[in-house]
C-alpha cells in the first residue's frame, strides 16, 4: 500500500495557477486563497497541509465552484483536463450554477468533508442518498440506482450492505458514515476526489481503516486524490506530492520526500519539528513556532510568516515569489516562497 507503488501516468488532470479567492467583509477584503498554483496528475495523491485559516479548504471548494457567498474567485485559472487528449477547460470561468458545473461536480470531481454526520441528510436512508447521486448523473431507473448503491456500500467495506442500504445515518457509527460519504463520492467514478479532512473526526484505528480504504479504492479506480489535512502523519501516509499553505499562500511545494526530508521554508521546518513523533525519545521541550497565525485582515507587509520566523531578515518586508529550487521556475518540482532560497538578482 506504499505510495511509491502507486501508478500515476503523470499526465496532468488539473492545473491551478494564480488562484485568488476573496471574501468581501464589512471590515475589508479577506484574501482566503492568494496566488495559489499547483497541479495534480492523473491518479496522483496531492496533500494540502496547513493550519486553520490557511485557505486549504477554500482552495478545495474553489475547484468545484462551491465557495460560500459572499466569497468568489477573483483571479487565476483552474485548468481541468476532462479527457486526456482534449484541450483543458477553465473551471474558474464556469458559472457556479451552470449545467456544465453540475455535470463536473460529483461526476468528475467529487468531494468528501470532515464531519460525516452533518454532510449526510438525517431524514433519508443512506441508500436513498447514494441512489440520488447515481440518478443525478446517470440516466438509470430507481431499481438500478438502488443496486448500484448496494454495490457501492459493499465496496467500501460495510458488512451486510443489503440491510445497511435502508438505514439512516444516525444508525451508523462515525467510521461507517465516512465510508458512506466515500461511497457516495465514488459512485460516479470521478477522476478527482477532494478529501477535506476526511479522518479528523475519527478515532485513530478507524482513521487507519478509512485511509486504507481510500488507498485501495484509488488503486482500483485510478482516481486522483487531493487530500486536505492538518495532520502531517496522514500526509506522509498517503501523499505523493505535498503543498504547504500559510495565510492563503503556497509557501512550499514538492514531493513528499522533499517536504519531509529536505524542507526549505522555515514554516515547513518549524511545523515538522513542532509535532511530537511517536517513538522518538521525548525531549523536555518541543521546538515550537512562536506566536500565532496572523489575522487575515491584518496580514503583515511582505512575507506573512516573517513575524514568527527565526530566519527573518530585511528582505522579508517584501513578498517573495514561489520559485523552483533547481530550475528557478514556478513549474519546478520543489518550489519554495522564501527569500532564503531566492536569488536577489532573480
Amino acid at each position, binding site marked *: *500500500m*506504499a*505510495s*511509491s507503488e502507486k501508478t500515476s501516468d503523470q499526465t496532468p488532470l488539473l492545473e491551478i495557477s494564480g488562484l485568488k479567492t476573496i471574501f468581501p467583509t464589512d471590515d475589508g477584503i479577506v484574501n482566503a486563497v492568494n496566488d495559489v498554483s499547483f497541479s495534480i496528475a492523473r491518479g496522483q495523491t496531492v496533500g494540502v497541509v496547513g*493550519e*486553520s485559516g490557511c485557505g486549504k479548504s477554500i482552495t478545495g471548494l474553489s475547484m468545484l465552484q462551491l465557495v460560500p457567498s459572499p466569497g468568489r474567485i477573483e483571479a487565476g485559472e483552474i485548468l481541468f483536463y476532462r479527457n486526456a487528449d482534449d484541450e483543458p477547460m477553465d473551471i474558474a470561468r464556469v458559472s457556479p450554477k451552470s449545467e456544465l458545473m453540475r455535470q463536473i461536480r460529483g461526476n468528475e470531481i467529487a468531494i468528501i468533508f470532515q464531519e460525516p454526520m452533518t454532510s449526510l441528510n438525517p431524514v433519508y436512508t443512506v441508500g436513498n442518498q447514494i441512489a440520488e447521486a447515481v440518478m443525478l448523473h446517470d440516466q438509470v431507473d430507481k431499481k438500478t440506482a438502488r443496486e448500484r448503491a448496494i454495490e457501492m456500500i459493499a465496496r467500501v467495506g460495510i458488512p451486510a450492505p443489503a440491510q445497511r442500504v435502508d438505514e439512516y445515518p444516525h444508525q451508523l*457509527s462515525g*467510521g*461507517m458514515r465516512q465510508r458512506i460519504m466515500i461511497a457516495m463520492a465514488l459512485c460516479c467514478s470521478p477522476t478527482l476526489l477532494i478529501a477535506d479532512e476526511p479522518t479528523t473526526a475519527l*478515532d*485513530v*484505528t*478507524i*482513521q*487507519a*481503516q478509512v*485511509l*486504507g480504504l481510500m488507498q485501495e479504492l484509488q488503486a482500483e479506480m485510478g482516481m486522483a486524490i487531493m487530500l486536505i489535512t*492538518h*495532520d*502531517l*502523519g*496522514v*500526509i*506522509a*501516509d498517503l501523499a505523493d506530492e505535498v503543498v504547504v499553505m500559510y495565510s492563503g499562500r503556497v509557501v512550499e511545494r514538492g514531493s*513528499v*520526500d522533499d517536504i*519531509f*526530508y529536505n524542507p526549505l521554508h522555515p514554516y515547513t521546518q*518549524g*511545523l*515538522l519539528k*513542532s*509535532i*511530537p*513523533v*511517536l*517513538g522518538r*525519545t*521525548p*525531549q*523536555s*521541550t*518541543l*521546538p*515550537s*513556532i*512562536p506566536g*500565532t*497565525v496572523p489575522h487575515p485582515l491584518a496580514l503583515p507587509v511582505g512575507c506573512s510568516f516573517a513575524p514568527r520566523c527565526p530566519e527573518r531578515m530585511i528582505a522579508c518586508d517584501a513578498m517573495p515569489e514561489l520559485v523552483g529550487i533547481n530550475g528557478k521556475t514556478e513549474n519546478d518540482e520543489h518550489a519554495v516562497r522564501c527569500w532564503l532560497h531566492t536569488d536577489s538578482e532573480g
Partner: protein
Amino acid sequence: MTKLLEVNDLRKYFPIQKGIFQRTIGYVKAVDGISFDVQRGETLGLVGESGCGKTTAGRCLLRLIPPTSGSFIFGEEQVDLAKLSQQELRPFRRRIQMIFQDPHASLNPRMTVGDIVGEPMRVNRTETGSALQDRIVELLESVGLRPQDTRRYPHAFSGGQRQRIGIARALALQPELIVADEPVSALDVSVQAQILNLLAELREKFQLSYIFIAHDLSVVEHISDRVAVMYLGKIVEISDAETLYQSPKHPYTEALISAVPLPDPSAQRKREHIRLEGDVPDPSQPPTGCYFHPRCRYATDICKQETPELRQVAQGVQVACHHSDTLALQGV
C-alpha cells in the same frame, strides 16, 4: 516519590432509562473498575478512543459527577475523596483542578480575563483587594500572557491564548494535581507545541502532577511519565511511557500504535500496518470475556469466556491480557 493519589476500582455506570416511568433497563458501564495511582510530580497519561471512559474517569476524580463505586485516596492525609460530603470536599477541591478541551466553551464570554482567573480565589477567599490583582497578573505572566490582558474578554484571544487563560485559572489555587482533558486537541499544530511546553514548564515550576487525558498517542508519549491505555471502560495496560511504546504488552496497545501514521514517509512505507476490524462495541452490551477479543487477531477460546484481570508482568508494567506472556508485539 510519594503517592499523591491512589484510585481503587473506580466504577461509573450510567443507567439506561426507558418508558414514562423511566424504568432502568440496563447500564452503560462507562468506567468499569479501574485502578491506578499518581505519584507526586508525575504525569500519568490516559489514552483511548472515544467512548473508552477516559473523560468520565477524569470527571469522577474531581467529583464533577458522582462515581458509582470506588475510592480515591488523596494526599498525605490519605483521605478517601469518594466518600466525602460536598461540604467536607471543599478544602480538597482547590487542590485538584481541571483544564478543559475546548477553550471557546470553557471561558465565560461575559467575564474579563482578570475576573475569570480571579474567580477561584474570590470564591475560596484566598486573596482579596490589591493582593488579588497582583496574583492575577502573576498568574497571567506565568502562562505567557501580559498584565494588560486582565481587562480584555475571551473573544479577543486566539485558541492557544484562551487555553493559556484556562491554565492560569487552574493554577490560581496552587493545586497539587491537575486533570487535563484533551488540553491541546482543539489547537493548531504549531500552537499545540507551545501549550505542551508550557504545561511541562509549569509542572517543574509548581511541582504539579498531571492526569493527562488525550486520544493522541504521540502527544501523550511526549508529556507523560507513565501511560494507561483504556478500552471500553477498563484499563488494558499501564506502564512507563517508553516501555509502553517500544514494547507494548496488550494487542490493543499494539494496534493503536500501529494505527498512528508517522510523519515520516519512508518509515511509514516500511511499517507493518495492523488494521483493526470493526468498531468499538456498544458499551451497554459489551462482549463476553475480554472486551477486546472480537477485534483481536490473537484471540483464542479463553478470551471469549474469561475476563482477564489487570496483573503485574514486570516492574511497573501491568496488563490485562491472557496471552501477554507469549505474545511478541511490535512497538513503534
